[in-house]
Every structure is written in C-alpha cells, then in structure tokens.
C-alpha cells in the first residue's frame, strides 16, 4: 500500500529539467574560433585535494604564460578543471563529461593513479589524450598508446634510494603511508634492498590521516636502526615522524622521496639533515627556479609539492606545444608525444617513451636539508 506522492514526482521532473537546461546552455562545441579547451582531472576535494591544488596551480601557471605570449594562433587556451576525487569512478565521470560534453582533445590527469585507471578506459576509445603528471603506479605503463605520463614510475625512486642506503647502512627501517604512491615505492624499495643483500628490519604502514606516530617510533627505537626511510606522501606526516622520532631519541639518518616543499623542510628543526631523493630540476636550474618565482608571485606562497607543480606545468606546455605544431588531431598529437625527445622541462630533461605511458631518461638526484634549506647532496 504505497502512496504515490505527487509532490515527489515533480521534484524529479524539476531536477531533470534543470539539469538538461544547464547542460545544453553550457555545452562546449568544437568551434574553429574561440578558446582552445584542455581538460584537467585532479582531486579538487577530499583528502588528496592538497595535491590536486598543486596540479591545478601548475596548469594555471603554464596557461598564464602561454596566453600572455599570444596563445595558440591567437586563440587563448583554457582549462576545464574536473574533480576526480582521487577515485576511479569519479575520474571516469569527469573524463566522460570532458570527452562527451566539453569535447576536449587533451586532458592533464589523473593525478592519483586510481584516477588514471578510471579515466583511461573512457579517453582511449574516444582517442582523447590522457597525460598524467603525477600517477606513479607501475601498472599505468600498461594503459596503451593514448595515455602518457611525465612522472617516473615508483620503481625508479625505490630502486635508486635502495641502492644508496643499502651500500652505507646496515639496519634499515621504512615507514610508509597507505597510499598507492607510497606503497608502490615501498615494494620496489624492499625488493631492491633484499636484492642488494641487506635487510629491512622494520616495515610498517600507516593511514594517511594519522598524526600520532609515537608507538611506531617506539618500536623503531627498540631496534636500534641507523637508517629510517620516511616513505610519506604528505609532507606534514613526514615531519611529524621526524619530530617524534628525534623526541624519542632516535639518531638514525632520515630519508624521504620528493619532499622538498616547506611543509616538510620548514616544519620543525628535527628534519635537519634528512636526505631527499628528488628530480633534478626545480631547485638549482634556471627554468625550475623561474617557475618557482612565478608561482610565488601568483599564489603568495611556496608550493608544498613542487614536484607535482613542475610536472603539471611541463605537461601543459608539452600538450600546448603539440597542438601548436600539429593541430588538434589526436592521432597526430599522440605521434608527436611518443617522439618527444630531450624535452627541457622544469623538473629536468627527459623524453617520453615511444610506446608506453612512461618517462625516459629522468635521472634522480640526492639532496639534503642543511640549515633549513634544501641543498645538493654529494654521495
């Protein structure tokens, strides 16, 4: 005995009408004049939004430069930012909207590897270019010819760090954040250390919103380790671990990956001396420095995730270069990208793999925090 409530039906009709009206009013067509649109998929809300902001800011900075230099053939380039929420399903919806409704030809995204895995099955059949500036999961390399990335796979950081650490230290501890990013590095790190003949005596992970690491630190202390790899994705977590470790009297050498932003470096005195594995650019070379100066000018602060800002900035420039040179035919763009060699980007000089979504030739370097600043570290 269900009463069909008429009011309810009108609600539904009303919502559907509003939606349809809005969609058709805002529908982007591919016109020959008017701005060129590129899509961006990144987590704009939720826990990962701190990285999403970095991606968005990097893209916006690049577009500012491009547009003040005249755009592409007189047309400005605009970005349509969609929220991927660091989630495969939402990234798929975002990709579907960008491809179908906005009709973009290229997308900078996903940021989280999950977003890339969700978006690729949508973009690839539609032959839309998906260029990820942050996804690091090894399996992204299997996503096919229309997906690209300029962020190195987890394998690289894990292996390089493992090589150095196992050559100098005997008792190694690793604390990892429970994200795809950090877990990927963790597995390659541990395998590489084992292969080098050393051993990891402590291997635990924590959920991203953990602030209290004291018991993990106590466990590490009881083992007397001499090297601690703080495998965190969030700079603040890493700085907490460092602080709580020193507070409890651990004297081991700290290591992190890519955390050169103020959120870690300027957090507290306990991070002093940490060795950081990093991309070559963004610290010492001209182009990287210029990017950081522009960022500070536009956003009034230093970026916390320089790496993501840099790769997203590069990705935008690379994509717009491609459009400028070969137009918006995506099979031509794909060919252009696959043959991109020795691109001098803000994070360093690198090439794109001729077949797979991978970056080639980006050597990683070691840096260290000395007197509160990040300087090069000579091994």
């Amino acid at each position: 005995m269900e009463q069909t409530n008429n009011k309810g039906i009108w609600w539904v009709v009303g919502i559907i009408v509003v939606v349809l009206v809005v969609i058709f009013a805002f529908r982007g067509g591919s016109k020959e004049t008017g701005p060129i649109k590129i899509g961006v998929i990144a987590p704009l809300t939720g826990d990962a939004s701190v990285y999403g902001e970095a991606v968005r800011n990097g893209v916006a900075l690049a577009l500012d430069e491009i547009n003040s230099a005249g755009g592409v053939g007189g047309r400005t380039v605009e970005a349509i930012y969609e929220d991927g929420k660091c989630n495969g399903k939402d990234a798929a919806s975002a990709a579907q909207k960008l491809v179908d409704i906005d009709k973009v030809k290229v997308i900078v995204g996903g940021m989280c590897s999950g977003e890339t895995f969700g978006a690729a099955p949508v973009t690839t059949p539609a032959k839309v270019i998906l260029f990820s500036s942050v996804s690091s999961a090894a399996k992204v390399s299997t996503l096919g010819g229309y997906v690209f990335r300029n962020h190195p796979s987890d394998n690289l950081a894990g292996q390089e760090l493992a090589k150095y650490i196992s050559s100098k230290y005997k008792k190694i501890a690793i604390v990892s954040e429970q994200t795809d990013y950090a877990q990927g590095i963790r597995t390659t790190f541990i395998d590489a250390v084992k292969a080098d003949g050393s051993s990891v005596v402590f291997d635990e992970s924590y959920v991203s919103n953990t602030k209290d690491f004291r018991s993990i630190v106590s466990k590490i202390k009881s083992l007397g380790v001499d090297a601690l790899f703080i495998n965190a994705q969030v700079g603040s977590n890493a700085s907490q671990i460092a602080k709580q470790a020193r507070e409890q009297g651990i004297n081991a050498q700290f290591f992190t990956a890519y955390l050169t932003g103020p959120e870690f470096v300027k957090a507290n005195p306990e991070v002093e001396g940490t060795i950081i594995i990093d991309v070559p650019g963004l610290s010492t070379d001209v182009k990287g420095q210029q990017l950081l100066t522009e960022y500070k000018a536009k956003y009034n602060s230093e970026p916390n995730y320089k790496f993501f800002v840099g790769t997203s900035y590069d990705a935008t420039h690379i994509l717009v270069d491609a459009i400028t040179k070969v137009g918006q035919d995506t099979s031509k763009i794909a060919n252009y990208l696959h043959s991109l060699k020795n691109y001098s980007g803000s994070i360093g000089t690198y090439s794109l793999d001729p077949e797979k979504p991978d970056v080639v030739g980006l050597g990683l370097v070691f840096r260290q925090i000395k007197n509160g600043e990040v300087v090069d570290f000579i091994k």
Partner: protein
Amino acid sequence: MDYFVHIAILIGIYSILALSLNLIVGYTGLLSITQAAFYGIGAYTTAILLTAFGMNFFLSIVVGMIITGILSLAIGYVLSKFDGDYFALGSFGFNIIVYSIFLNWQSLTRGPLGIPGISKPVLFGLDFSDNLIFLILVIVLAVGVYFISQFITRSSFGRVLKAIREDEKAIKVFGYNTLFFKLTIFVIGAMIASVAGSLFASYITYVDPTSFALSESIFILAIIILGGLANNKGAVLGAICLVILPEALRFVGFPSDIAAQMRQVTYGLILIVLMLYRPQGLLGEYKL
C-alpha cells in the same frame, strides 16, 4: 550521448544498492551503515577472479554473492545483539574493519594500489564493452532487483519485517523468531549489494579501497532517506537525484578553485534542509 549512458549506468548501480539497503533499513528498521562493505566484497571478488583467473563475469557475480552471504551472516549475527543507535555504531565499526582489510591485506587486494584491468563481461559471445549494452545489463538487473524487493515486501515475510520495525518485542510475544527474519533480510540485502559491486568493478575496470569506505555507506543511506524509506520507487528516485546532483553541479559555474568545495557545501545543505523540512523523503510512507 556517452556521458548520459555513463550516468544512467551509475544510477542503475546505485539503485540496486539503495533497494538492497531499503530492505534492511526501511522495511525492517535496522539502521545499518555498512552496506559499502558488502558492495566492496562483491567488487573485489569480481576484480580478483577476473584478473587473476580469467573467470567469466557472470560466474563471479555468483561467487561474490556466496562469499558476501557467508560474511554477512556472521556480521549480521553479531549486529543482531544490538539495538537502535548501537546497531548503527556497530555497523559503522564493521564497515571500518572491512575497509581496513581491503586496505591492508595487500597480498590479496594490492591495498591502495587497487586492481586495474578488470575486463568487461562476455556472455555467449556478446561483448559488453559497448556502454549501451552494459547499460541494458544494468537495467535488467536493477529491474529484477526491484521486483524481488516488491515481492519480498508484499509477502507475509515482508509483513513480519514491518512488524519488527514497528515493535519487535510485541511480535516476539506472538512466537515469531525475529532473529531469523532479521538475519535473513540482512543477508539478502548484502548479497544484492554484492551484485552491484560486481557490476561496478567490471564497468569502471578498476577498484580500490576508497570506493568502499564509510562515506559510501553513508551516501547509500542518504539516498534512501531522500527517496523515502520503505518505498522501493523512492529508493530508485533517490538514486537518480543523488547521482545526478554532483554531476549537475559540475556545470554550475563556480569559480574553479572553490568549485569542488562549493559542491560539498551544496550537498551538505541539501541534507540539512531535507531533514528540517521533509524528513520522510520524497516518496516516503514511513516518517523517520
């Protein structure tokens, strides 16, 4: 029109989830906030069976339902010891525990790395990778679930459920074994949610733990509250509204750096306003 097909598929999947939860919450009055756990078990079962063993999708749905059925029997049994608010809290707890397992049992689930590359269904040579065909599959299943729900709730079994919702002690006096009824509907609801999970896994071709956290259970609850508890049409209506809402908000021109947050504000305000002015939901017969 692919975008609309995509939205329709999501509406279909969430309709199945809403219908499944409605049986437990709307008809039987058990405030269960753990449906995402069963959704996830179905999804991961399909994901693992398809990627590691190349099993047929439809067979994986059945396996998923069996595994979910067994686990939900255990969970439901423990939960049946609680009542009212404590039932809800306990179910919260189970959701978080199951989520922890998805996240930390890395040898099985690859943890936060998730499982990519799940293939689309294939049946008698009919390939479902065309979204339109997948949509038809989802609609068929959703309609099936709808009629099953209607059948259950209109039967004498359903009447007992409603009686439990109204006054469990009273009906116990009449000799009904309420534990049996509560457990049965809990397990049925869980198994239906598992089907939705299998569909989800194959459609998106990727699963990771974040899709099955507590917030997802809360979302499904919000759907049936919006649509109206104990009303199957309401469950579907709620799914339509809450799936379309964030997508529609994509088109409203908020300035890009706060757009996403503004959507959250809108979503939150809608919940508050609904509770203040129309708590029985859109089509509800059962006033909360």
